[in-house]
């Protein structure tokens, strides 16, 4: 979904612009409804036994990631953003994954094993 374009100063174009934004509004409402539905699904799934606790955690995190993706892509307009912002976020993603990797190393303790 693209960002609504910057508003035009020309009144004749204004009506068309408002119509465009209105289309986005429908998208936002749909995403809001989806997020609420996924919340209910997350709660319901947590009472289903998937065999191991690890499996339950993996499934819940999968749904949470999906929800977070929706928020980021649509509400935060990341589906269509300028390159500079993607660049910043690629670095952020790299470093935050590195942080989780360090945690994993500390827990796994490869030097002693």
């Amino acid at each position, binding site marked *: 979904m693209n960002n609504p374009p910057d*508003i035009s100063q020309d009144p004749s174009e204004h009506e068309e612009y408002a119509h465009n934004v209105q289309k986005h509004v429908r998208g936002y409402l749909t995403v809001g409804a989806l997020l609420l539905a996924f919340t209910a699904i997350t*709660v319901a799934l947590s009472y289903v036994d998937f065999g191991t606790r690890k499996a339950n955690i993996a499934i*819940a995190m999968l749904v949470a990631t999906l929800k977070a993706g929706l928020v980021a892509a649509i509400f*935060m307009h990341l589906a269509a953003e300028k390159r500079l912002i993607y660049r*910043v976020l690629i670095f*952020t993603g790299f470093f935050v994954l590195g942080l*989780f990797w360090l*945690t994993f190393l500390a*827990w796994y303790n490869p030097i002693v094993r």
Partner: protein
Amino acid sequence: MEIPYTISTRPDTGLWNAKVGIWLFLASEVMLFGGLFSAYIFLRLDAPPGMWPHGLLNVPVGTMNTAILILSSVTVVLAWAELKMRRYRRYWWYMLATILCGVIFLTVKLVYEWPQKFEHFGAYIKPQALEKYEQYLGNKHAAEKGLPPRLEITGHLHNREALTNPNIKEYEVALDPVNADPTNPAMDRPHFLYVPPTDKIGKIDKEDVERATMFLPTHSAYFASYFTITGLHGLHVLGGVLVFIYMWLPVSKKVYQRNPEHLANRVEVCGLFWHFVDLIWIFVFPLFYLL
């Protein structure tokens, strides 16, 4: 001197400046919460069997708060869209709705959820004394079912002075359902609805107790990380609400009258922060309430 590129875009980045600024800030926020989440993962992976509690938080209330935060994310993006369509009155209402959602979220947290925890008591039993409290713990039943061992007795502490008075030799606890009837298969898994402590009183000798506290950060790694992460998240909600109130007050109407795009951009930037706070909660909710 006027701040440049608050409305028009900078030719080299293709963005107005505040948008670059908020994304850099959010990048740093990702690292801040990333650090706390990795601490959570580390503590949880390292917790011995039975030492990571489940089902201590109120799931319906947590679910409601999640829904409220999602709703507020929708209203703030609608507020921004209304500004883009130059409908200030409708913007004003959506902004009010957002502020109210934030206030409800914080109120539920600070007036209901946290204080209820502060009133709850738990005592971890020493390994050598576990047998003695089998009637409350039901560890034979838990082992048969392949459940983690139960090491803690929880409920409402009747003689609260026992926590501080060394002359009182035992804790009198109105037991939580799981300790009142530990072999009941209905207690094998956490309940969806909150079940209050029963009338059944359990007596626990202080000398059999490894550690006994109210549900405070000192209780366990679980509550320490719960209060730290939800506390920091709550501060973010508070910050967002304060900025939204500023955007909603008449002072912002002046900005709108001077140049509507300026206010729209301000709201967009604050909205980005607000969605990020929502995004964090999307992970906090299952990690602490459900899993």
